[in-house]
C-alpha cells in the first residue's frame, strides 16, 4: 500500500524559481490582507499617522496661528497643506518598523519556508501602508475642512497634492526598509525615523516662511525636500502657481529611489 504512495525522485535540475502571475497575485492578496488585519488588530499604530497631525494642526493653528499670520484662517491655509504633504512620509516609516517586526518575530522565516516569491512579502507591505496613508489623508483632510480649510485649488489639485505626497513617501520607503533591516528593534527604527524626521519637518517651510529664519537655517530650509513638498501642496490646495516645486519633489523622489532602492533590495535579498 505504501508502495503506491512513494513517488520517484524528481529529475534534476529543475527550474523552480518561477511562480506564475496568478499565484503571485494570490500571494500578494493574502499578504496584503494580513498586513491590513494587523493594522486593524493594532489600531494604536494609526495614532502616529492620525493623532499627531491632528494635534499639530490644533496646536499650531490655534496657539501660534494668530501670531504667525494676520489671522488663524490665513495661517491654516499656509500650514495645513504643507503638513498634509508629510502624511505620505508616515507610510514610509511604518514600512520599516513593520518589516523589522516581521524579521524579529520569526514571521519572515515562516514566509521564507513557504513556496512564495519574496517580492510579494515586500510589495504587500507597501500596498498596505499606502492604503493606510490614504485613510489618513481622508481623515485629516476631512478634519481640516471641518476646522475651515478651503480647498481653493479644487478636488483635482487636492488629488495631485495627495499623489505627490504619496510619491515622495514611496521614495522614502526604501530608506525606511534599510533602517528596518539594519536596526535591532522596531522601537529603534521608530526612534531613528523620528530623529531624522523632526529636523527635516521643522527646518522646512511647513510651519513658517523661511524668509523669517536666520541665514544658515534658510540655506538648509531652501534645500530641504520637505520645503519643496510643502510649497507644492500649498500651491496646489490654494490654487496658486506651483512654480518649480512639483518638479523639485519628483526629482528628489527619483534621486532617493535610485540611490537607496538597490541597496534596500540587495539587503532584503541577502536576508531572505
Amino acid at each position: 500500500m505504501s508502495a503506491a504512495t512513494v513517488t520517484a525522485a524528481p529529475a534534476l535540475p529543475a527550474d523552480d524559481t518561477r511562480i506564475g502571475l496568478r499565484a503571485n497575485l494570490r500571494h500578494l492578496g493574502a499578504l496584503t490582507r494580513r498586513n491590513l488585519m494587523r493594522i486593524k488588530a493594532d489600531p494604536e499604530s494609526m495614532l502616529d499617522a492620525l493623532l499627531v497631525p491632528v494635534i499639530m494642526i490644533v496646536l499650531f493653528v490655534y496657539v501660534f496661528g494668530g501670531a504667525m499670520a494676520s489671522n488663524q484662517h490665513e495661517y491654516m491655509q499656509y500650514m495645513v497643506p504643507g503638513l498634509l504633504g508629510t502624511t505620505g512620509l508616515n507610510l514610509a516609516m511604518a514600512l520599516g518598523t513593520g518589516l523589522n517586526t516581521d524579521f524579529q518575530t520569526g514571521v519572515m522565516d515562516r514566509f521564507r519556508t513557504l513556496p512564495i516569491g519574496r517580492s510579494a512579502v515586500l510589495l504587500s507591505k507597501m500596498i498596505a501602508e499606502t492604503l493606510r496613508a490614504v485613510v489618513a489623508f481622508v481623515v485629516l483632510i476631512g478634519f481640516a475642512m471641518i476646522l475651515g480649510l478651503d480647498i481653493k485649488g479644487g478636488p483635482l489639485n487636492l488629488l495631485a497634492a495627495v499623489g505627490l505626497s504619496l510619491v515622495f513617501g514611496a521614495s522614502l520607503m526604501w530608506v525606511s526598509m534599510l533602517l528596518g533591516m539594519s536596526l535591532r528593534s522596531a522601537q529603534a527604527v521608530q526612534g531613528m525615523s523620528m530623529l531624522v524626521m523632526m529636523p527635516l519637518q521643522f527646518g522646512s517651510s511647513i510651519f513658517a516662511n523661511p524668509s523669517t529664519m536666520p541665514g544658515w537655517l534658510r540655506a538648509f530650509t531652501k534645500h530641504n525636500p520637505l520645503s519643496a513638498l510643502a510649497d507644492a501642496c500649498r500651491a496646489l490646495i490654494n490654487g496658486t502657481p506651483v512654480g518649480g516645486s512639483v518638479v523639485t519633489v519628483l526629482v528628489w523622489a527619483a534621486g532617493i529611489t535610485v540611490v537607496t532602492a538597490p541597496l534596500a533590495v540587495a539587503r532584503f535579498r541577502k536576508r531572505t
Partner: protein
Amino acid sequence: MTEILRNAVEVHGIVKHYGETKALDGVDLTVREGTVLGLLGPNGAGKTTLVRVLSTLIKPDAGTAFVGGYDVLRQPKQLRRTIGLTGQYASVDELLSGYENLYLIGRLLDLSSREAKARAAELLERFSLTEAAKRPAKGYSGGMRRRLDLAASMIGRPKVLYLDEPTTGLDPRTRNEVWDEVQRMVGEGSTVLLTTQYMEEAEQLADELTVIDKGRVIANGGIQELKTQVGGQSLQVRPLRPEELPEMARCLHEAGIPATFSEESGLLSVHLTDEGQLTTVIGALGTRGFGIAGIDTKLPSLDEVFLTITGKSSVPAPSREKEAVA
C-alpha cells in the same frame, strides 16, 4: 520492501561557518521515510543551523542535502512544498487570530479560498483550538501557541516535518500534549526531524538518534544501540552509613574499579563493564566491613549516554567529584 529504506532526508558533508565559528563542520545524516530522527546536542551544537539549512533559510558553505528528493540549493521552492517547520523561530503572526494565521498560510500554499478555510477549521479542531480560533494569537497560552505552530506547519500536509525544540519552555502537561500530537503525525506517515536537548523527549519520540556537538556528528544509531555503545550497566550502592562514601570509593579504586559518589544523593555509582564486576564490588565492600543498605543496577540513561559521547564529564573520577563538592 525497498520503499521502506528510502531516505526522506539526506545530508552529505554540510558545512556552515560564521567567521571563525564552525556552526556546521561537515554533517552527514539520513532520516528514513516514516521515521523520527532525534537530533540531539547541547546548546550551540548546530542543531538549529542544520534545520535552517534544510528549510532553505540559509545556504550552506559546502555539502549537499536532499529533502523528499529535492535539492535544498537547486529546488528550494519544490522543497518548501514538502516540508513543515515548527521551531523556536518561524513563528505565527501574534496580531492575527489562530484562524487567520492558518488561512493565510493555506493561501500562500496555493489552496483555494474554500480549501484554505476548510483546512484551517480542520486543524483548529484537531489541535483543540476551535474555541480560541477568533482570538489574536498573542493572548494564547504557551501550549496553545505551540499547538498553533504545529498546526501551521501542517497546513500543506508536509511529507517531512522539522520540529526544532518543540517543547522547550513548556510545562510537563503541555509537553505531553505536544508529544501526543507528534506521535499522531508520525502514525499518519510523516517523517520527522526532531531537535531536542531533552533525552526524555528523544526517548519518547525518536526511532533513531544523531548526536551532534560543535557542528559535527559524534554518534548515531538506535537508542538501544547507543546505550550499549556506551556500554554496560551502572551499579548504584546505597551505604548504611553515608559518611563512609569517600572511603568506599577509595576502597574500590584500590580494587581497580573506578567509582564515583555523590554526597547529595548519598549514592556510590560504579560503571560495570563486565558481569563479574558486580560480585567483585560487593565482595570488596563486604570484606572491608562497609554496610550496604541497597543496590540497584540500570542501563545508562540517555543523559549519561549523551554526556559520555560528548565527553563532558561523563563518569568523573572521584577526585574530580570531590573537588566539585568542595
